[in-house]
């Protein structure tokens, strides 16, 4: 059923975009659980897809902010370059940890994000 799959992907995309636009949270915390619970992705595939979605969504958001002049390029490089190093470690690590353990870590992240959204 390719049409049903595309419909589900569209709903997941819209849900991710709406929530991240509404609360200023990244798309990943919304997207990864939906891919796991609704499309049956494992944690690695869900995380991989999420990273690509984040690239596309962040480009859109960054262009909007660039036109308002809200971006500090030096600060972006100060945290961004170390973070690129970190993501190499993180993805490497993820291939070597049990997916169920990664999923447990993710649920902790969700609770932390929920607290930030409710009380932050």
């Amino acid at each position, binding site marked *: 059923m390719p049409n049903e799959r*595309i419909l589900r*992907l*569209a709903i997941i*995309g819209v849900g991710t*975009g709406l929530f*991240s*636009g509404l*609360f200023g*949270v*990244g*798309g*990943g*915390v919304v*997207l*990864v659980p939906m891919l796991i*619970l609704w499309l049956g992705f494992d944690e*690695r*595939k869900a995380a*991989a*897809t999420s*990273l*690509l*979605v*984040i*690239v*596309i*969504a*962040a480009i*859109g*958001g*960054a262009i909007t*902010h660039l036109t308002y002049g*809200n*971006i*500090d390029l030096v600060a*972006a*490089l100060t*945290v*961004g*370059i*170390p*973070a*690129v190093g*970190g*993501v*190499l*470690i*993180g*993805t490497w*690590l*993820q291939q070597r*940890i*049990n997916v*169920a353990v990664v999923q447990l870590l993710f*649920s*902790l*992240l*969700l609770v932390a994000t929920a*607290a930030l*959204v409710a009380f932050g």
Partner: protein
Amino acid sequence: MIVLAIVIGVAAGILSGLLGIGGGILLVPALALVLDLDHIDAEATSLLAIIPVAAVGAWRQRSYGNLDVRTGVTVGIFAALAAVGGVALVNALDERLIRYFFAVLMVYVAWRLASGAIRQLRAEAASATEG
């Protein structure tokens, strides 16, 4: 202060690669509290910093064989469009109410994910002792 920002940057990247998130949960506070950006600038700057991080992460995941590019691009286009709608909706809705609703929903999803993971770990442990 720069050293602290770099350390938090590395941690955000590890979290990003491990969990498939952007890392804004660490980058925004680092930019606001350590590098003294105001809140909107911190969020905007975090968004720019996330692009190469997520791109490198997606590239690595593709080499590990975990990434279906077409799925990601499809979801990504819808997400980018809907984010604009989400920002517009913030001003139209009772924000506190939906914040609490969303927080409760996330805790529920966390419980679903955690119980599934624990079930899987128990099954693996059981089959390990049998085998």
